[in-house]
């Protein structure tokens, strides 16, 4: 990484976050432009509601603005934190309760992929989609129920009429396939 905070022609998340910590609105604008589609799409998939997904998006980036100075890039990926936090809030909202406030300097998320450029994100979307389409139906169903509907394994087992251990095994196998996009 070059000292000026860019990799190739992309300004890194860490540099943007440092600028946001100094209340640089353009840096927040750039970060929002970088991740709004990913965060919104995932939130909308979970909530099935555009307005609620937009609220999640707005609150999340407002929190980034407020607390950017406390983020330590060494502890985890900002993109990972955004996705995990947005999902947690969306699931909490789906269950009709207010989500806990996840601080930027806690709950590190290690995302071992470059997702800072549009090209990288599009590539990953295609790869993940290919993997998901290639999964056996029961594995894909278990994974989607867990991630997008916030269903615990017991609820998935009840829904599908399968034994609990079978459901767990299917989710583990699905995750193994999914993690191959990391290589």
């Amino acid at each position, binding site marked *: 990484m070059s000292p000026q905070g860019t990799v190739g022609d992309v300004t890194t998340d860490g540099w943007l976050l440092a600028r946001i910590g100094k209340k640089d609105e*353009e840096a927040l604008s750039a970060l*929002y432009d970088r991740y709004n589609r990913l965060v919104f799409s995932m939130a909308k998939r979970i909530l099935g509601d555009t307005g609620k997904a937009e609220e999640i998006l707005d609150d999340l980036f407002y929190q980034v603005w407020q607390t950017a100075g406390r983020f330590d890039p060494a502890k985890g990926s900002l993109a990972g934190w955004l996705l995990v936090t947005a999902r947690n809030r969306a699931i909490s909202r789906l269950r009709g309760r207010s989500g806990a406030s996840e601080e930027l300097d806690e709950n590190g998320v290690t995302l071992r992929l470059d997702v800072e450029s549009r090209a990288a994100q599009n590539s990953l979307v295609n790869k993940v989609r290919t993997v998901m389409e290639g999964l056996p139906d029961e594995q894909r169903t278990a994974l989607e129920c867990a*991630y997008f509907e916030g269903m615990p394994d017991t609820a998935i087992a009840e829904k599908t009429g399968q034994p609990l251990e079978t459901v767990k095994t299917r989710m583990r196998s699905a995750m193994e396939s999914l993690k191959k996009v990391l290589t």
Partner: protein
Amino acid sequence: MEELELYALGALSGEEAAALQAHVAECGECTMKLAQAHGSAALMAFAAKQERPAGTIKAELMARIRANREEEDRFAWPLRTQAPGLGAGRAKMESDAKGSWWNWVLVPAAVLLALVSLGLSWQNRKIAAELQKERRAAELLIHDREEIEKLVSVLAAPDTVTVKLAGTGDAANASGVVKYNGKMGVMVYSAELPALPGGKSYEMWLMPTNGAAINAGVLRASGRVWGNLWTAEVPAKTEAKGFAVTIEPAGGVAQPTGPKVLVGAT
């Protein structure tokens, strides 16, 4: 690790999740593994159909941020300045605040004094917010005056050099001028450039005879000192061999990375 992945997916229920959470809180290795598991689970976000939110969401977010900044400035104001002569009139000002404050709005210097006391008036948020806007306008006037004084001093100095900038590449029709006074370490420059797509900025550089390029500012509309002019301060007594404007990511960078659109040599 597999249980951690199921936990990261939110797929462990009740006692299992609680037990794992308690263990992770005590185990550094598992904390790291959980961070990786969260990263793996986050891949599922990419499986969602990709859609963009309405454009108004960003506009509302940025407006909310600006409003918050103005609020913060209002609360910080009394700590930064003390207006002379305020003490004697404060009691009267506070008691007459509701009736006579409009008169203070019309007098920029009086607005600064009134804000110190009105900043304590927690109940009149709307009125205080209006006054805050006037205060910022006054601050900008003062800032502009200082910038214009800097501009005039550079333009009038006999040892100020003028460098014309010519467009290159995709901005062949662009033009610019730099007035540079190395002794003062001040640049005044103007540029006519085509509009940029979102996510990009123009950035001005001083190319010294020795050493790396020196950042002379991002050409933001808000940064103009007057008309189409910007000023920048650089280390005094820097010998410049030329100037250039490049296209960089929004917000600017510390060293030039993008294509040059304006160049000029001293």
